């Protein structure tokens, strides 16, 4: 049973919150979507199929050779942060 509280928990674990009415919309949406999802599980013989991740199998996959070292500058790396100190990004103290 999907409840608002459950959805709020999901959202919070994804590091955001929503407004009350937005959860209501989401609840209704879940209802439709879960019905659509039932279409997935009801296909015959589905259990015997290996789930697909890649659109097709690539032949001769090459991994990167361990050479041609490349870096970016500290300036570029830090150019979009709102809070830095020296050459590092600054955040409120992280306590475990």
């Amino acid at each position, binding site marked *: 049973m999907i409840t608002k509280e459950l959805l709020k928990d999901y959202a919070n674990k994804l590091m955001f919150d929503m407004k009350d009415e937005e959860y209501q919309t989401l609840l209704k949406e*879940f209802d439709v979507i879960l019905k*659509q999802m039932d*279409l997935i599980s009801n296909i015959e013989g*589905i259990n015997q199929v290996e789930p697909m991740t*890649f*659109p097709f199998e690539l032949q001769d996959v090459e991994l990167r050779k361990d050479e041609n070292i490349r870096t970016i500058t500290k300036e570029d*790396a830090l150019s979009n942060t709102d809070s830095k100190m020296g050459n590092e990004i600054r955040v409120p103290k992280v*306590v475990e």
Partner: protein
Amino acid sequence: MSYLDKTIAEIKLSLDKNETTVSSLTTEAIERAKDYQEKLNSFVTITEDNAKNQLDNLDSVKDSPLKGIPYALKDNFSTKGILTTASSNILKDYVPFFNATCVNKLYNKGAILIGKTVLDELAMGGTGTTGHTGPVKNPWNAKRLIGGSSAGSASAVASGIVPFSIGSDTGDSIRKPACYGGIVGYKPTYGLVSRFGLFAFASSMDHVGCFTRSVLDSAIVTDAIKGKDEKDMTTFDSSNINLTANINNDIKGKKLFYIKELVDRNNYQDDMDEELDQILINFDLIKEKCKNLGMTIEEVSIDKNLLKAIFPTYITISCAEATSNNSNLTGIIFGPRGAGDNINEIMFNARTKGFSELIKRRFVLGSYILQKENQEKLFLNAGRIRRLIVDKMTTLFKEYDAMILPATGSIAPTFRKEDIDKLSDRYLLLENHMAIANFGGFPSITIPSGFVHNMPIGINITSGIKQDEKLLNIANKIENALTYKGQIAGGEN
């Protein structure tokens, strides 16, 4: 008629004959972009300075079919020194320091970037209405949407601002707006074009593709941006694929098929209206044209339940991957920093503020799908359906050269919120079938095929993987047999 209204191939000829200049083309494209902005809202950023810089340096670029051709780029492609927002508040000030591979390739070929186009926020959506700078309008009728997620890229080409634009396609994000805009939209085989620099939505289904006003132009653009890229492990060597050179091959005897269940009127008895009726009539007409071109066209039947599972499968896989792909958006390294006294608060507030409601709903869904207790039933089952569909299609592509279908079951909708029944056959079958090509990485193209209620409609043609030459070849011949090549929206109808 302005030279800008022509196709890439035509403009190139005019440039070579000195009938027009790159500078005047670019200037005109930028002027149009500005003029139409209020009406269409195609752009997040019109990159006038960049265009000037490119023009200044154009002499050093060796000649290419795209040299001096202005183009627009979806705002989810990384552009060095140019604001790139993905039409989301969470990236509203983000200025990348590196270029997407396709952007570099276009730069090196001398194509002039004149603007970054609006998309559905983070490319998640099919309406073109959810970008942080407002909805994109359809140039054929501004009361209607153009579709998404590559909305601005579609409207920029459909309205004649640029002869081509770059988009991304995860479910039908190029091919549907192309249909609604009466232009060509092409998504090549997965891995033909590098995704490096494209902001990921659902990595296993994301494709880079283009909008043009002719099939030949799509070939020209794709020839310029394709190729194995050391920055994208899923790209493959395509030096043996030459789309432009094979566009006029003989197509006599080619075998096409369509899926019976998707165009069978009996399946739409409850959903039938004049619009759908006209679209199906148009499809019959196209079938005749194909036969007249010397191709055969056969009806193939596929389990309707499998077809109805396409959309839920797409939603399941795409939302799940999107939840993970967008986990980097926390406001720490880039994007507006959230308020708060501790690390969790600042991430939490950045994301709460930065994402719109629709995005959050999709993320919650994606997270639900990936949860341990649901993964088997939802995520993995979707992967299984994906395989069943792809295997079926792959078998069919061994027998047939291509699949042909109406691109959509309706014309571009109005902005008025309509209550679409998302469980109806029409919605589940005809509105969302194009995701098949994303499941299997199949090359797929939409070309305009007529008008219904003064709005453009299109057909979609799809081939087996790496059969892009053949696909564009067939599409080009069909396009030539019709009268919509090069069409530009005439304004409000």
